[in-house]
């Protein structure tokens, strides 16, 4: 088989961080190669170098035998490389056809040949089994449809090598299956494919070969039929990191109860008639593929969204829509989904971030003036207790790594002794070590009697931590299921929206 792609000793540094360290990789014609590694291993950086978003510091790239000029996506596209980005590079306000045709015609052409473009797009759509409406506005499309547009963009530019970055992060199981079938079909038509993933089962099911990256280096390559998930897991992480195990214990009284709550986001219903109960000393896991209403649920439980209908009560008191300040005062601790956008103010130092939520409290302010010494001490305490590395209270918080920032956020929430904790994707983007630390803290809080609601897209995490589980699909919640009864088949059905008649939320 011919080698269509050869990455030779690619090295890339960002300041003190070496993101890729002399990585060498080959792709053969017609094969599907999986690039596997945990968060921060360097997979996306490597592919960004291939596609020209970055230029490597050392090393070269050869595509179909020709050297690829570095740092220019145009060169990569002309060489036949296409990329489906993890965060889609689409303009929501424009149509599918607009997004696909951009850049494909000479800029100085006097009239855009849209009819030809439309015909070509529809032909490709048919050939590869990716149905789209060329005139639809991208913002109105579902995530799966948008991904199809991203793929068609690459095919429209005659890509012979296709890179997909975490393509199933936003897809439900059936859609993910369908995607891999389409990819297989493409290889039958002569394309070669690399996909990035951190999901072992997908890699085992869909790829011909696997390359494992760890800490910026390629640590192993295997033919997929010759390896196993266990071997890959160990190669990915490099050591046996075991996540902490949940100990079953008796659960307390109901703390936070939602009854038939409906929440609108941007004028559309995002949560419909959802009901759940979280008890003291319990972790309730809400599992689902991204984009099924988790954002609205997170907003509701952070105090940012008001229920259009239904009730949200804390120990019997109505709290729906009271606002973040009231939620904090009521003892609800919130770990937000996006630590950079919502969790911290990057330019402020660690100590101000540690107390920003609680500036009104007497311990941190008197008569409108901030009690700076008390706040600094508090921050120093958090840094020590929660093992936040690379920080003093004065450090600008944006300098912390993702894992350390998350540990600080966790610390500031837990140190307030909350009655209820919202943990929204608490380990997104973290490496195994940080994930284990976060899980340990959540389980400790559970042992102390906090009522925890965990929203997670990682099944393994949700099942490992939760006492009970509910699936979120299209803004609705399934009936709760005890963790012991949540086998993969049952969970799969729940996440696909196949529910029995809802029992009373227990």
């Amino acid at each position, binding site marked *: 088989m011919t080698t269509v792609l050869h990455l030779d000793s690619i090295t890339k540094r960002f300041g003190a961080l070496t993101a890729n360290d002399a990585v060498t990789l080959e792709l053969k014609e017609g094969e599907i190669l999986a690039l596997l590694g945990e968060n921060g291993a360097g997979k996306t950086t490597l592919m960004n170098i291939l596609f020209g978003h970055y230029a490597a510091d050392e090393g070269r790239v050869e595509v179909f035998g020709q050297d690829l000029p570095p740092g220019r996506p145009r060169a990569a596209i002309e060489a036949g490389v296409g990329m489906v980005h993890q965060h889609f590079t689409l303009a929501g306000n424009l149509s599918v056809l607009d997004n696909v045709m951009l850049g494909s015609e000479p800029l100085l052409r006097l009239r*855009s040949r849209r009819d030809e473009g439309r015909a070509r797009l529809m032909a490709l759509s048919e050939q590869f089994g990716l149905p789209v409406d060329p005139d639809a506005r991208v913002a109105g499309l579902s995530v799966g449809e948008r991904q199809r547009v991203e793929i068609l963009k690459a095919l429209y530019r005659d890509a012979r090598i296709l890179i997909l970055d975490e393509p199933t992060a936003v897809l439900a199981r059936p859609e993910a299956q369908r995607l891999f079938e389409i990819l297989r079909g493409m290889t039958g038509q002569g394309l070669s494919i690399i996909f990035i993933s951190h999901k072992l089962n997908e890699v085992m099911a869909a790829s011909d070969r696997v390359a494992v990256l760890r800490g910026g280096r390629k640590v192993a390559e295997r033919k997929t039929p010759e390896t196993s998930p266990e071997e890959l897991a160990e190669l990915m992480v490099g050591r046996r990191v075991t996540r902490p195990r949940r100990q079953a214990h008796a659960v307390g009284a109901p703390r936070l109860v939602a009854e038939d709550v409906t929440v609108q986001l941007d004028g559309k219903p995002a949560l419909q008639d959802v009901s759940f109960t979280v008890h003291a000393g319990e972790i309730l896991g809400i599992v689902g593929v991204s984009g099924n209403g988790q954002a609205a649920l997170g907003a509701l439980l952070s105090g940012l969204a008001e229920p259009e209908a239904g009730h949200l009560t804390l120990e019997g008191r109505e709290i729906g829509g009271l606002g973040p300040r009231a939620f904090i005062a009521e003892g609800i601790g919130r770990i937000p989904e996006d630590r950079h956008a919502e969790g911290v103010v990057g330019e402020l130092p660690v100590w101000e971030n540690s107390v920003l939520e609680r500036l009104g409290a007497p311990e941190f302010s008197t008569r409108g003036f901030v009690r700076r010494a008390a706040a600094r001490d508090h921050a120093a305490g958090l840094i020590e207790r929660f093992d936040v590395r690379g920080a003093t209270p004065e450090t600008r918080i944006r300098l912390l790594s993702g894992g350390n920032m998350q540990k600080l956020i966790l610390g500031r929430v837990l140190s307030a002794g909350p009655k209820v904790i919202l943990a929204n994707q608490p380990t997104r983007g973290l490496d195994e070590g940080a994930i284990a630390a976060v899980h340990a803290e959540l389980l400790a809080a559970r042992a102390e009697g906090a009522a925890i609601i965990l929203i997670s897209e990682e099944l393994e995490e949700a099942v490992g931590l939760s006492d009970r589980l509910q699936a979120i699909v299209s803004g609705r919640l399934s009936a709760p299921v005890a963790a012991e009864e949540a086998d993969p088949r049952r969970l799969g059905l729940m996440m696909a929206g196949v529910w029995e008649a809802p029992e009373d939320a227990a």
Partner: protein
Amino acid sequence: MTEALDLLFNASLWAAVLRIATPLIFGVLGALLCERAGVLNLGIEGIMTMGAMVGWLSVFLGADLWTGLLIAAGAGALMGLLHALLTVPLGLSQHVSGLGITLFASALAYYLYRLIVTVGESPPTIVPFRPLDIPVLSDIPFLGPVLFSQAAPTYLALLAVAVMAYVLARTPLGLAIRMTGENPHAVEAQGLDPTLIRIGCVMAGSALMALGGAFLTTAAFNSFFPEMVQGRGWICIALVVFASWRPGKALLGALLFAFFDAYQLRLQTVVEGVPYQLFLMAPYVLSIVALILVARRAQVPEALMTPYRKGER
């Protein structure tokens, strides 16, 4: 009351509307082009002032009127280049940079004017664009004097509206510009350079703005004096929002605004006892009202004012 209404049937009012609208049309189109590509250009007030001065000065120093306009456009493009360099590759605050450009371009214009021109009792004058009486068409009653007896740059402005509407909607370049204002990463991912597109649009937009200023000194009036732009630049920024960033609607907005301005001027002669300042205030108040009315449904270009840092995803 009837006198106020009678004014509406006067052809000279409507002819004035087109004339007053011309600098606004250039200004709105210029601001629109910059913003469609994702850059807010608050330098408009200064760039229009600079265009007014440079256009007039070129003619005063011997160039013909069209060359004067060309030089004014060039000066505008240079100021635009400065704003673009500060805000695009350097990613500085578009608000502050724009304000700085306005202060700088105005100050520079006044300084150079004072340096080169000796001002006596009244500012020196040039021979401006005369209204072009288009044969046959300008004899049509009412419509003739209004539509077919305008100065040449006015027709240029109307042409510019059509050209910009076409380019944005129907050409690959227009698509690239629109996309740059919505998602510059998408532009990069398709092999184009959003930085260059933004810089080019800001330069071209600033050239248009400068033409708007130059119209004031080479057609509407025939001399240059400080503060002659009178906030028209800011009004154009408001009109861009009002026009939902579309050239056709921008033309309508400019005409509507010019109508109120022209009407208010004539109303002063007819209505007794109202201080003239209230009339003069009307255009600014109207702009604010217009902004409030459209604010809710404004479909802003998504990447407007977001600096584009390559590789930062």
